[in-house]
C-alpha cells in the first residue's frame, strides 16, 4: 500500500468515526419525549412498539454509514476526475479522493453547528425542527413549515456549508495539481456543480413522486 492510499484509508476511518460520533450524539438529542410528541396521533403502546423497533434496528444505521460514504466519495471523485480528464490535467484518482474526503469536513462543521444549536440555543425542539434544521441555509431563512415538502431538500442544499464544501474542493484540487485557482473553480463548478444540480433535481422528483 503506497503513502497516498494509506493516507486515504486513514482519512476515511477518521471521518467515519467522526460521523458515527455525530450520529450517536444526534440519537441522544432525539429523546423518547420528542418521539412521543411526534407520534401523538398513535396510542402509547404503539409508540412504544415503534420506538423499541427503532432502537432494535439502530445498528443498521451505523453499519450503513461507511457504505454510504464510500459510495458518495467514489461518485464525487469520479465526477471530478472526469472533469479533469476532459481538460487533460494530469491528476490521479486517489489524489482527488483525498481532497474529497477532507472537504467533507465542511459538512462535519454543519453537524457540529446543528448539535451546538440545539444544546445551547434552542433546547425545546420537535423532531421535525431537529431533522429539518440546516444552519445558514435557505430553508432556515424561510422556515420548513412555510414551504412545500418537496422544496425542503433543495432549500437545505443551498447553504453556507455547501459553499464552504465547494471552496474546500476547489482549493484542495488547486493545491494538489498546481492548477490556477480560477480554472479549478471552473472545473469544480462544471463537474461537481452539474452533478449536484442533477442530484437535487432527482431527489425533488422522487419526493414529489412519493406524494410528499
Amino acid at each position, binding site marked *: 500500500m503506497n503513502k497516498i492510499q494509506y493516507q486515504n484509508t486513514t482519512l476515511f476511518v477518521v471521518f467515519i468515526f467522526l460521523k458515527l460520533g455525530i450520529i450517536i450524539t444526534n440519537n441522544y438529542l432525539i429523546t423518547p419525549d420528542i418521539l412521543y410528541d411526534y407520534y401523538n396521533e*398513535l396510542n402509547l403502546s404503539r409508540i412504544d412498539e415503534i420506538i423499541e423497533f427503532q432502537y432494535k434496528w439502530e445498528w443498521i444505521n451505523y453499519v450503513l454509514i461507511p457504505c454510504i460514504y464510500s459510495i458518495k466519495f467514489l461518485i464525487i471523485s469520479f465526477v471530478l476526475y472526469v472533469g479533469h480528464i476532459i481538460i487533460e490535467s494530469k491528476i490521479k484518482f486517489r489524489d482527488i479522493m483525498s481532497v474529497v474526503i477532507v472537504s467533507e469536513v465542511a459538512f462535519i462543521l454543519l453537524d457540529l453547528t446543528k448539535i451546538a444549536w440545539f444544546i445551547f440555543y434552542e433546547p425545546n425542539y420537535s423532531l421535525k425542527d431537529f431533522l429539518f434544521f440546516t444552519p445558514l441555509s435557505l430553508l432556515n431563512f424561510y422556515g420548513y413549515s412555510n414551504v412545500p415538502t*418537496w422544496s425542503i431538500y433543495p432549500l437545505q442544499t443551498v447553504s453556507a456549508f455547501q459553499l464552504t464544501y465547494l471552496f474546500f474542493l476547489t482549493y484542495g484540487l488547486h493545491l494538489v495539481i498546481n492548477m490556477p485557482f480560477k480554472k479549478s473553480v471552473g472545473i469544480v463548478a462544471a463537474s461537481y456543480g452539474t452533478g449536484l444540480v442533477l442530484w437535487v*433535481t432527482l431527489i425533488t422528483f422522487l419526493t*414529489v413522486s412519493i*406524494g410528499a
Partner: protein
Amino acid sequence: MLSNKKVIISIIITSVLGLLIFLVSKTVIKLKHKERIVAQIKTLPHLSVKAIGSKKVEEWSKLGKVTIIIFFNSGCEHCQYEAKSIKQEILAFAGTNILFISDETVEKILAFSKANKLHNNNRVWWLKMNSNDVYNTFGAIGVPHIWIYDEDGKLVKEFKGETRVEAILEWL
C-alpha cells in the same frame, strides 16, 4: 472533423441537459396533478370502485352521513392495526360510513375484511379501486391514508399514516 474530446463533451452536455429537462418536466407535471388533487378531495370525490360483498356502492354514495375513507393495503402492518382498532371501537362510529379502499385483488380485500371481522358490518364498505383511479382520485399516497368528510361531503380532516382511533373519533 470533431476531436474525440469535443465529442465526449457534447455527449455529456446533451445527456445532462436531457436528463434535467426530463426530471424537471416530470416534476412539474406531478406538482400540477397534486394541485388538482388537493382541490378535488376538498369535497367527497366520485369514486370509481367495485363493492366487495353483499352491499351495493350506491348505498353509501348519497350524502347525509359522515364518511370516512381509509385507503389500505392488506400486507401493511399499520393498516392491520388501523382495521383492528376500528373494529374494537366500531360502536362509536354510529351514523358513519366507513369505506375501506384498496387497489389489491378482490380476494385479498375480502380476506382482510374477514380477518378483521368487519366483512358483515353495516357501517363498513369494502371497495376495490384500480391503481390508475387511485392516482387520479387521491394522487400518490401511502398506506394507510384516512380522509374524513362531514354530512355535506366536505373534507374535515386528513390523516397520513396509522392513526389512533380516538383521534379519528374527535372529528366525527
